[in-house]
């Protein structure tokens, strides 16, 4: 179907407009990081670099950033391992409850965060009698990160079929060797896509984290939440957010290059 030029132009314009609207609040955030007024009066009367100076020295932000990165990294690794295992198990063995299981698997993402949050909080504190801390945050995050990895891997495995692996086994390769040399390379881009999404989800997660973090731990979203309304800290929050947006281009671009030109990797398509 060839679209008329008018149609194509209309679509292009719509997309551009939409992107403008999407980026306006972000631009506002960047602008406000230079706003001299502490409560962001609009329009900004005075611009200053003061907040950027403060931000560079802000230890709270740095600690929070580091904790978020750590949590996201560990949760992603756990998710990668468990998600892949689950996907492989599910696609290798057929059983009649399969649809129900896939329903259950997406439950952590499909149910509202607050439900997951209070359920886990309740379980951690009363059933397991754990102290809320780094571990509980990781467990909570991993629970919904598994889903993204699982989905991507499952989709890829469905496309791959089992032939190559069977062939490899027939040729005498053991299970692990097959995985290492045949399965894994084919899964790589799906794993990457899943990992990237999992990392992003964990990094920006606030609701479940509110309920599963101890008093000493502040991930970046928690730090932002606690500081957004403090007059002397709120502008620093804007600086941090501005930096995050700009810096995030790097991993996204990087992942795109690695996953090939059809963007299938990133969006988990096909």
């Amino acid at each position, binding site marked *: *179907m*060839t679209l*008329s030029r008018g149609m194509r132009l209309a*679509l*292009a314009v*719509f*997309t551009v407009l*939409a992107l403008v*609207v*999407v*980026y306006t*609040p*972000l631009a*506002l*955030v960047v602008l*406000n990081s230079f706003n001299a007024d502490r409560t962001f009066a*609009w329009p900004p009367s005075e611009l200053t670099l003061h907040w950027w100076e403060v931000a560079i020295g802000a230890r709270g932000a740095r600690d929070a950033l580091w904790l978020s990165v750590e949590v996201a990294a560990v949760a992603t690794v756990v998710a990668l391992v*468990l998600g892949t295992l689950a996907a492989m*198990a599910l696609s290798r063995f057929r059983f009649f409850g399969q649809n129900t299981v*896939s*329903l*259950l*698997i*997406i439950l952590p*993402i*499909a*149910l*509202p*965060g*607050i*439900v997951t949050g*209070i*359920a*886990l909080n*309740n*379980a951690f504190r009363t*059933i397991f009698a754990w102290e809320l801390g780094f571990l509980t945050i990781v467990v909570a995050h991993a*629970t919904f990160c*598994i*889903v993204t990895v699982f989905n991507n891997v499952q*989709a890829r495995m469905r496309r791959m079929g089992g032939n190559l692996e069977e062939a490899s086994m027939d040729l005498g390769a053991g299970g692990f060797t097959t995985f290492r040399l045949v399965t894994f390379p084919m899964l790589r881009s799906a794993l990457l896509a899943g990992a990237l999404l999992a990392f*992003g989800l964990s990094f*920006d997660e*606030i*609701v479940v984290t509110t*309920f599963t973090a101890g008093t000493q731990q502040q991930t970046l*979203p928690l730090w*932002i*939440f606690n500081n*957004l309304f403090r007059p002397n800290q709120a502008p620093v929050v804007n600086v941090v*957010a501005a930096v*995050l*947006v700009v810096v995030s*281009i790097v991993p*996204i*671009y990087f992942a*795109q290059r690695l996953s090939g030109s059809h*963007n299938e990797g*990133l*969006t988990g398509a096909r």
Partner: protein
Amino acid sequence: MLWLGVAYLGALAALFLTSLWGQNSFTGEIERTWTLDNFRTLFTLEVYRTITLRTLGIAALVTVIDAVLAFPIAFYMAKVASVRVQQLLVIAVLMPLWASYLVKAYAWRGILSDGGLIDWLGTPFGIQSPGYGITATIITLSYLWLPYMILPVFAGLERLPDSLLEASADLGAPAGQTFRRVILPMAFPALVAGSIFTFSLSLGDYIAVKIVGGANQLLGNVVYDNVGAANNLPFAAAVATIPVVVMLLYLAAVRRTGALENL
């Protein structure tokens, strides 16, 4: 698998068990006496029905708005744009996901405030900012979840072979008909997949509505207030059953469309 089963499902089960218990309102301790009082209150007091309907309405509206907005963008990205532009667009759509949810909501608080960006841009045209309230909540939530709708739809449309579209044109169908008969049905599962996110995220949201929603409260707020401020976990658990039941029904209904494959 066991992890999901025990840790997650077990935690959920435990939570809903507490909804059947009572609470001492003075000390805030949970009393393990079996009672249906929580559910009774939930179903008899009109305010909870109002809040539930309001939340469902907002979630549905946000989903529809996002679907309508996302589709043209995703279509452009998948079928019309050149490969280079497509790559750029994917990055452009993904980047806002990394900006903190809170910062974005807070930015909208500024934009929607009296004398904020909307007022500033709109005064020559006589347009006024809707201020804080339901409209603001819908706008902000639609904004926040838009990438979650664009991505699955984009993936779904990409999967659509160009040959099908060409064949449809060859058979004489005008663009509108191709859209209705070929594209939409094939993209529908992807749309539904995206809607799972937007619907569920809106159903449980309590932060954005606190920031831009003015005096309004949604289901998420009732749950949060009862867990935090009122320390009434049993009642919060009872309220929490509502979004869970809604989502379970939604997921069951959606399973048939094959949307679950598209997540």
